C-alpha cells in the first residue's frame, strides 16, 4: 500500500466519524423529557371533556345476576352509564396486532364487560362504565351501581384446576387452554446413560410490570364521526379490535399513540381503549380515563406464575445426557397471550445447551386470578430460571465450576436448539459471553463481618428477538427528503422508552448523511403513519430498523444516481456524508445535498419511499412436537452476580452485576447499555422482592408500598459488556436486547445465594423469611 493510499484510507475512516450509527447520541426526545414538555396520555385534555370510571367486580368467582344502574344514571353530572348490553360486540377474540389469523386455540375470549347470567372470573373484572362531568362524580356514580352476585367457589391453583371435576373458570368444559410439547432422542435412554440425575420443582409467582405511568387515554369523535383514541399503548394495531367491539369498519377507528411511560408488555393488550371508545360514541363528547395505581395493579395483566418440574441427567464429566421439563403456566382468568407465552417457554426450555435427549411439556391453565399475558421475557425467562438453577445444582453435585459445566454443554455457531432443532445460522457468542461475565466480577469481595456471607452466581441463556415466524411479521416505514435537506420519517412505531422512535431517525440520518437535528419522526398514528407492528417481542430494532433502512436506501440510491450524472462519476464512487454527496478518496469534488435534491426535483425523481420489511415466514408447526424454525434468531447473553447474605436476618444485598451480551451491533450504545442496566435491576426485583400476591383470587399488593420494586438503594452498579459480532439480522448486524437483557439475571442471583450460604431458593422471590427458614433447616445442621 502506498503512503498516499494509506492517507486516503485514513480519511475514509475519519469521514465515518460523521456517521451517527454506533454513537451514543442523545435521543430526539431527551430535551422534551427533561424540560417536562412531553405530553403523556394523561397530560392531554379537550374542551367539554368527560371523566370515566370503571365499576369492577369485588369477587374472583361469581355468577353475575344483575346490574342495576338506575341510581347511578340519575346522579347529577352523570352523562352515561354502560353495561355489557350497550356494547355492540361484547365478545370478540384477543389478538395482539397480528394480521394473520392463527386459530388453533391461540385466540382467546376478549369480553369487554361482564355479562348478566355469565361467570365473573377475577377480582377487578369490569362490569360497568361511567362518564361524568368530574372524576369525583364518576367515582360516586360507580359506587351507586348495584351489582348482584351469586358467589361461586372458584379455583386458584393451576394444578387443582386441571384435576377432573375442578371448578370451571369459564364457559368451556376444561380449564386447560392448551398444551405444547417438544421431544428429541430417547428420554429414558438418556437418563439410563446418566451417572447423576437431579429432579427439582420451582415455583414462580405472578409479578407486575410496575411501569410508573398508569394506563391512560382520551377518546373523541372527529367532524366525520371517526373515533380517535389518544392512548399509551404498545400496539396501535388494536384499532381493529376496538372497531370489532363497536361493530364499525376498521377505517373508522384511529389510534394516536403517545410516548409510553413504561410498558414491559403490560400495555400490549387493550387497556382503556374499548371503554373510552364506547363512552365517546355514546356521549359524543371527549372522554378521558386514567387508572389509579391501585386499579392499574388490580386490573391489568400480570406475568404468568409458573410451576416447573425439571429432571436432568448427566455423566460424571459434566456432559448433560437428558432433560425433561414440565411447565404449568397459571394464565389466570382469561386466555389473552397465554398460548404464545407457553410456546416461548417450550422452545426455550433446554436453554442454549446441546442435550441429545429432551422432552418438554407445557400446559397453560385458567384460574380465578387476574389474567396473565405479556411481560418482558414472555415465558422464556421463566424457563431460564428453571434450567439455570438445575444446571447450577448439577455443577455443585459434580463439584464443577459453574462456568465449566456451561462450557462443556453450550451451543456453538451452527448448532441447533435442543428443543425444536432449529439450527442457529448466525454467530453464537458462547461460551464467550459466559467467560466475560464471570471474569467481569473481578476479585471477590471479602466479608468483614461474621454474619455476612459472600457468594457468586452465573447464568446464561438465549432469547428470541422478533416474533414467532409462523405469525408472518412485517413492518413498514416512510422516509422523505425535504427540499431544504431536512428529513421526514413516518412510522407507526410506539416508543416504550427504549428509544425505538429515535433509533429510526438515527438509521435514516446515517443513510442520508443528515445530522440528527434535521430529522423529524412522526410516529404512532394508526391512520397516518405506515404500520410498523407492535413494540413487543424485542422486534422493533430488527423489524422497523430494517424497514427504515430499506426506505432510506431507496432514496439514497436515487440521490447518488442523480449526483453521479452531475459529477460525471460512477455512483458506487459516491457517498453521502455531512449533507454532501462526496466522491470517495477525493474531497475536492462534491455536490451539496440540497443541490442534489434540486437536481432530482427538476428531473421528476421522487425523494420519498415507503418500504416494507418481512421477517422469514414459516408454517404453523405441530404444537405437540415442535420442530424447525419458530423464531428468526436469538440473542445470547450471560449475567453474573455477587451477593452478600446476612445469615442472621436472611437479607440479601446484590453487590455487583456483570451483564454480557452479543448485541450484534450497538446502534446507539447508550440505549443498549440503558436496556442492559435496566433489565438487570428489574431482575433484582424479580429475584428478591416482587410478588403479586393473591389470596383466593383477591390481590394483596395493590400499592408500591406492598408491591416492592428496586429503589436506587437496592441497585448495585451494573457493569455492561457488549460484544459486537455483527451477526444479527437487524440493520448493520444488530440483534435485539430489550427482553434478553432481563433473561438470565434471576438465576444468577439465586445461584449466588446458594454459593454464599448453601441454600437453593426454589420459590420466588427469595425473601429474607425464606432464606432464614432454609438456613435453619440446612445451614445450621452442617
Amino acid at each position, binding site marked *: 500500500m502506498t503512503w498516499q493510499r494509506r492517507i486516503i484510507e485514513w480519511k475514509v475512516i475519519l469521514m465515518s466519524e460523521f456517521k451517527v450509527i454506533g454513537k451514543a447520541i442523545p435521543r430526539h426526545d431527551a430535551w422534551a423529557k*427533561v424540560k417536562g414538555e412531553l405530553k403523556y396520555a394523561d397530560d392531554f385534555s379537550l374542551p367539554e371533556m368527560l371523566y370515566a370510571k370503571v365499576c369492577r367486580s369485588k369477587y374472583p368467582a361469581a355468577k353475575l345476576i344483575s346490574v342495576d344502574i338506575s341510581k347511578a344514571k340519575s346522579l347529577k353530572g352523570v352523562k352515561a352509564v354502560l353495561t355489557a348490553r350497550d356494547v355492540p360486540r361484547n365478545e370478540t377474540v384477543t389478538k395482539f396486532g397480528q394480521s394473520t389469523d392463527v386459530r388453533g386455540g391461540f385466540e382467546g375470549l376478549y369480553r369487554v364487560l361482564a355479562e348478566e347470567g355469565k361467570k365473573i372470573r377475577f377480582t377487578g373484572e369490569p362490569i360497568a362504565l361511567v362518564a361524568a362531568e368530574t372524576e369525583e362524580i364518576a367515582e360516586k356514580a360507580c359506587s351507586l351501581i348495584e351489582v348482584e352476585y351469586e358467589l361461586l367457589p372458584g379455583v386458584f391453583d393451576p394444578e387443582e384446576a386441571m384435576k377432573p371435576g375442578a371448578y370451571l373458570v369459564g364457559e368451556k368444559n376444561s380449564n386447560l387452554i392448551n398444551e405444547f410439547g417438544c421431544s428429541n432422542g430417547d428420554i429414558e435412554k438418556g437418563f439410563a446413560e446418566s451417572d447423576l440425575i437431579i429432579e427439582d420443582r420451582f415455583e414462580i409467582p405472578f409479578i407486575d410490570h410496575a411501569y*410508573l405511568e398508569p394506563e391512560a387515554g382520551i377518546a373523541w369523535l372527529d367532524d366525520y364521526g371517526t373515533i380517535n383514541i389518544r392512548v399509551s399503548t404498545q400496539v396501535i394495531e388494536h384499532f381493529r379490535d376496538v372497531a370489532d367491539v363497536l361493530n364499525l369498519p376498521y377505517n373508522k377507528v384511529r389510534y394516536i399513540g403517545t410516548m409510553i411511560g413504561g410498558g414491559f408488555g403490560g400495555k400490549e393488550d387493550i387497556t382503556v381503549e374499548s371503554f373510552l371508545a364506547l363512552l365517546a360514541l355514546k356521549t359524543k363528547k371527549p372522554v378521558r380515563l386514567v387508572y389509579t395505581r391501585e386499579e392499574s395493579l388490580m386490573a391489568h395483566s400480570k406475568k404468568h406464575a409458573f410451576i416447573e418440574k425439571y429432571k436432568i441427567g448427566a455423566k460424571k464429566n459434566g456432559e448433560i445426557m437428558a432433560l425433561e421439563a414440565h411447565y404449568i403456566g397459571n394464565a389466570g382468568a382469561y386466555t389473552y397471550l397465554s398460548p404464545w407465552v407457553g410456546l416461548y417457554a417450550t422452545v426455550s426450555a433446554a436453554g442454549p445447551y446441546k442435550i441429545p435427549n429432551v422432552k418438554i411439556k407445557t400446559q397453560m391453565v385458567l384460574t380465578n386470578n387476574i389474567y396473565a399475558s405479556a411481560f418482558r421475557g414472555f415465558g422464556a425467562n421463566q424457563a431460564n430460571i428453571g434450567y439455570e438453577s438445575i444446571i447450577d445444582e448439577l455443577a455443585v453435585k459434580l463439584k464443577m465450576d459453574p462456568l465449566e459445566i456451561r462450557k462443556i454443554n453450550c451451543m456453538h455457531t451452527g448448532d441447533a436448539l435442543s428443543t425444536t432443532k432449529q439450527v442457529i445460522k448466525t454467530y453464537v457468542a458462547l461460551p464467550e459471553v459466559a467467560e466475560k461475565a464471570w471474569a467481569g466480577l473481578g476479585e471477590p469481595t471479602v466479608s468483614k463481618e461474621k454474619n455476612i456471607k459472600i457468594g457468586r452466581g452465573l447464568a446464561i441463556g438465549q432469547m428470541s428477538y422478533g416474533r414467532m415466524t409462523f405469525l408472518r411479521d412485517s413492518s413498514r416505514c416512510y422516509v422523505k427528503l425535504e427540499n431544504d435537506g431536512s428529513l421526514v420519517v413516518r412510522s407507526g412505531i410506539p416508543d416504550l422508552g427504549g428509544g425505538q422512535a429515535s433509533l429510526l431517525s438515527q438509521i435514516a440520518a446515517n443513510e442520508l448523511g443528515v445530522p440528527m437535528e434535521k430529522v423529524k419522526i412522526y410516529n404512532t398514528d394508526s391512520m397516518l403513519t405506515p404500520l410498523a407492528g407492535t413494540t413487543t417481542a424485542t422486534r422493533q430494532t430488527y423489524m422497523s430498523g430494517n424497514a427504515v433502512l430499506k426506505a432510506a436506501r431507496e432514496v439514497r440510491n436515487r440521490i447518488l444516481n442523480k449526483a453521479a450524472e452531475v459529477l460525471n462519476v460512477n455512483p458506487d464512487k459516491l457517498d453521502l456524508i455531512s449533507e454532501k454527496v462526496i466522491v470517495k478518496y477525493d474531497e475536492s469534488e462534491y455536490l451539496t445535498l440540497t443541490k442534489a435534491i434540486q437536481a432530482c426535483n427538476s428531473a421528476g425523481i421522487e425523494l420519498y419511499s415507503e418500504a416494507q420489511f418481512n421477517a422469514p415466514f414459516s408454517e404453523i408447526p405441530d404444537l405437540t412436537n415442535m420442530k424447525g424454525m419458530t423464531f428468526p434468531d436469538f440473542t445470547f447473553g450471560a449475567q453474573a452476580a455477587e451477593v452478600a447474605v446476612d445469615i442472621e436476618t436472611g437479607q440479601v444485598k446484590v453487590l455487583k452485576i456483570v451483564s454480557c451480551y452479543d448485541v450484534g451491533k450497538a446502534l446507539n450504545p447508550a440505549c443498549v447499555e440503558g436496556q442492559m442496566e435496566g433489565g438487570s435491576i428489574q431482575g433484582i426485583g424479580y429475584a428478591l422482592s416482587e410478588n403479586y400476591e393473591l389470596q383466593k383470587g383477591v390481590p394483596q399488593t395493590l400499592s408500591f408500598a406492598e408491591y416492592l420494586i428496586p429503589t436506587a438503594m437496592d441497585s448495585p452498579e451494573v457493569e455492561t459488556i457488549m460484544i459486537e459480532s455483527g451477526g444479527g439480522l437487524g440493520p448493520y448486524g444488530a440483534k435485539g436486547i430489550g427482553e434478553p437483557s432481563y433473561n438470565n439475571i434471576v438465576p444468577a442471583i439465586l445461584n449466588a445465594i446458594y454459593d454464599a450460604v448453601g441454600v437453593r431458593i426454589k420459590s420466588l422471590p427469595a425473601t429474607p423469611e425464606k432464606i432464614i427458614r432454609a438456613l435453619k433447616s440446612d445451614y445450621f445442621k452442617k
Partner: protein
Amino acid sequence: MEGYPIELTINGEKICAKAQPEQSLLKFLRENGFTEVKCGCEKGDCGTCTVIMNRKAIKSCITLAMQANGKEILTAKGLEKQALGRKLQESFVKYGAIQCGFCTPGMLMAAKAYLDENPEPNKGEIRNAISGNLCRCTGYKKIVEAIYDVAEENYRVEGDINV
C-alpha cells in the same frame, strides 16, 4: 369551580387560583396546567410528583394544595431558568439517564433539592437521596452518574432564583 383562593409562586411567577380543601397539591398543579408534575401513585410511594417547595423536595400528591399557600414552588419547567437546574437537565441528556421519561421530572427535582443542600456528595449519598423516586427503566446507574457529574462541577451560581 368553588373553592378557596390561594396565592403561590410557581417557577418564579405569582399564581392566584382556587383550591379545594381536600385537594392535593399534585391535582392543583396539574389542573392549572403544570402537567410536567406526573401522577404515578398518589400515595407518596413513587416520587414522580416531586416538586420543590421552599427549597425542599416534597411529594405533591401527599401535600395539600392549601399547604402551598404563600409558598414558592419549582417544577421541572422552571429548572431551565437557573444554573443548577439547567446543568442537571444537560447532564441527564448527556448521560442518557432518561428512558421512558415518566420519572424524569420528579427525579430532577429530587436531585436539584439535594445538590442545593449537599453540593459535593458521593455516589452512595446520591443513591440514598433519590431512593424515594422510583425508576423502572434505567436501573438508576445513568441517573446517579448524571447527578454525580453535576455535583463534581459544583455548579452553584450566585443569583439563581432561590426556591
